[in-house]
């Protein structure tokens, strides 16, 4: 069926359209130049933008279910019955249906899970398959993998490339994620990596070597997405220096299409000072570096005041957090590949540390250029993704930030520059940070824009951008972005004014990187390592036919 969105006020930063009154046409699920007839949506006086793209949101995988088990309080805190559809429960760790419905209500249509442990890839895909409404994908964890570290030590880039392409294919992932390179392996011995030149026990490699070689392999394989890095020393005062040093590892690599390194949830890695007492913001330094280097992109990892569930493969960092807060702690070991830690958390405006974390996230969002920083909460680490509209409003309104700052601990004024920042992102910039930029960073040519050939994923919000001043009317902006008037997925209306209209199951996008020759190169090495696994090689990985709507991307 065709769809015509008439007279909307369109923002499409990727195609240079900023507040133009125009019509959007969708035919067979894709955006086209024009269609003769079809269902018409009158969008006059309303904002029309591409469907949202969340490039970093924990929505599937083993740790998500463990968090649900650990947090019956969270599951019980929100319940919603959707007549004719599935029920929702939970706040920071909702059930799978809740995740899909809430993204759809907010006008988001694409979500990527950034931590897929190879050994539990099947679980990740089973969960992604259970999430309705959105297109999705996953990034495979590689930074502490025994094979990767072996090939890095042996300086065998060809084997490393072959292994990565096999691993991505085997786990049906979209790209490479690194979490605390070397640190999670060291955690098996009760240690961590404290700098880029620490040595991983028994592997004699350093985080510096792991990151550099994975970037080299990633670029050489010509994978669509760049290396996606969660830096060492997460959550440690003074860690901004490690973050900038890690960013410098991308110098010398270049890709005309995109960045060569995406550093994620940078707020957690942008701390200055040397203890929680002298804790302050390192966001300014990081912003300066990112703004002057076009091969780096970041996302915010913005904390939201209220309840959160921290979940990350960075198990040693989570143990440190558990020691700090004494909250309940879940730890997972993923054999020869990675680990995970889960802890419920509460960001309080009254607590000096969490208030400063909140301010650092905003500093990054405001100080870094809008073509380099993506809006994220590292859902649910900084808070649930449902807080995005609130963050959008804060980025666009210094008045709203002032109101929030009044509630926050006075330490924010000493430890960060947030009170003196009067930058206000424009609506176009915020649309870029939530749509076109994440799509460009992930290298999804059919997402995040409304040009001909793009997927027919459109969000229509009940706000007239030409007659609204986001700085003053931030409440209205937040309200409008919280509940899309219409969310359109592949030309079908899936949500209208917060009500689910149609349940659809999106594609799972992965990269078909494997070539037969690869296995000849690494078969012996990988088979040898498999003698230490609890699983047979023949039972490892995910078959394409097991995925509900498989959508492989071929590598050029």
């Amino acid at each position, binding site marked *: 069926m065709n769809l015509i969105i008439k007279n909307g006020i369109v923002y499409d930063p990727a195609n240079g359209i900023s507040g133009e009154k125009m019509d959007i046409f969708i035919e067979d699920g894709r955006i086209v130049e024009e269609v003769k007839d079809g269902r018409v949506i009158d969008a006059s006086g309303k904002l029309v933008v591409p469907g949202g793209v969340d490039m970093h949101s924990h929505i599937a995988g083993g740790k998500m279910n463990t968090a649900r088990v*650990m947090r019956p*309080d*969270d599951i*019980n805190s929100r319940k919603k019955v959707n007549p004719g559809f599935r029920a929702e429960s939970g706040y920071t760790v909702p059930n799978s249906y809740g995740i899909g419905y809430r993204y759809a209500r907010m006008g988001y249509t694409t979500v990527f899970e950034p931590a897929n442990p190879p050994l539990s890839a099947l679980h990740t895909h089973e969960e992604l398959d259970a999430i309705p409404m959105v297109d999705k994908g996953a990034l495979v964890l590689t930074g502490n993998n025994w094979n990767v570290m072996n090939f890095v030590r042996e300086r065998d880039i060809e084997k490393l490339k072959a292994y990565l392409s096999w691993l991505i294919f085997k786990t049906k992932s979209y790209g490479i994620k690194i979490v605390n390179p070397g640190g999670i392996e060291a955690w098996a011995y009760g240690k961590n990596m404290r700098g880029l030149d620490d040595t991983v026990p028994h592997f004699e490699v350093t985080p510096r070597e792991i990151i550099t070689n994975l970037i080299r392999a990633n670029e050489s394989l010509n994978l669509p997405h760049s290396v996606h890095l969660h830096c060492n020393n997460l959550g440690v005062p003074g860690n901004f220096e490690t973050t900038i040093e890690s960013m410098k590892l991308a110098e010398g690599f270049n890709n005309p299409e995109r960045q060569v390194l995406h550093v994620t949830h940078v707020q957690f890695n942008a701390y200055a000072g040397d203890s929680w007492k002298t804790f302050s913001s390192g966001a300014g330094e990081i912003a300066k570096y990112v703004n002057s280097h076009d091969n780096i992109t970041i996302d915010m990892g913005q904390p939201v005041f209220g309840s959160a569930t921290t979940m990350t493969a960075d198990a040693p960092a989570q143990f440190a957090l558990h020691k700090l807060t004494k909250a309940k702690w879940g730890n997972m070991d993923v054999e020869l590949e990675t680990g995970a830690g889960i802890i419920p958390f509460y960001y309080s405006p009254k607590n000096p540390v969490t208030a400063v974390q909140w301010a650092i996230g905003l500093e990054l969002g405001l100080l870094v250029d809008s073509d380099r920083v993506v809006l994220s909460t590292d859902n649910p680490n900084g808070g649930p993704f449902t807080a995005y509209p609130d963050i959008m409003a804060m980025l666009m309104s210094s008045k709203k930030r002032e109101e929030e700052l009044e509630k926050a601990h006075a330490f924010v004024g000493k430890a960060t520059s947030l009170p003196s920042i009067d930058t206000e992102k424009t609506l176009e910039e915020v649309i870029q940070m939530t749509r076109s930029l994440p799509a460009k960073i992930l290298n999804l040519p059919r997402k995040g824009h409304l040009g001909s050939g793009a997927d027919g994923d459109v969000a229509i919000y009940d706000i007239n951008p030409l007659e609204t001043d986001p700085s003053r009317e931030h409440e209205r902006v937040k309200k409008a972005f919280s509940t899309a008037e219409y969310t359109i997925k592949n030309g079908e209306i899936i949500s209208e004014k917060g009500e689910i209209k149609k349940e659809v199951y999106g594609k799972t996008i992965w990269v078909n990187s494997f070539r037969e020759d690869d296995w000849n190169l690494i078969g012996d090495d990988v088979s040898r390592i498999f003698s230490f696994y609890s699983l047979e090689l023949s039972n490892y990985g995910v078959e394409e036919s097991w995925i509900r709507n498989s959508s492989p991307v071929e590598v050029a």
Partner: protein
Amino acid sequence: MIVLRLKNEIEVPVEMDGILPSAISGKSREEIEAMKIYHGNRIVSLGEIFHVSVEEGDEDTILCDGDFSKVKWLGSGMDGGRILVRGNAGVHCGARMKDGEILIEGNADDYLGAEMTGGKIEVKGNAGNYVGSAYHGDTKGMRGGEIIIHGSAGNFVGEKMSQGSITIKGNAGDFVGYRMSGGMITVEGDAGITGASMLGGRITVEGDCIVPPTFERTEDGLTGDFIEGGKGVLITGT
């Protein structure tokens, strides 16, 4: 006074959250009968399950006459008034109540007064497990108010409680005051394992009980649980 009597014996439990003295005061019998409750997974009106009558007495009182052991969430979230149960009460009775009074002449089931913040509950018979406790995953149990049980109670009395008082005139089961951080529990009879992982507050057991080895004897009595760095006080009769 509103009197509720079961029309027929019920097999599938009904859920009475929302049927509170403050919610019914000023309503006519017909309006009360039309109020909605869950019966299993069906939504029914109160009048389908109960015979409702208005009798002489205080306006803000609900009298539940008969065996209400299949009636869940009685008086949960209550913010004033009185509920009298002339018989047994079902699970979650008085859970999260803020104010008011519940008197149960028979026995109470599990989760009596769980996470309550104020008000008073008195049970003439016995109570089940989790009296004044936290719900799973929550960090705090009872946060205020008073519970008096004339009979005995099951396991996990006052689990994670932080304020208020619980008195058991009979015996209590295992894990009395598990992870409690404040408030007071008195057991006039015997108890099982008592005070484990206690962080603060005071437990008195007049009869016998099992004290974990992680308590120290000081001039206040037994203090602990030191494995948690706790500063609770445990007074035992023996």
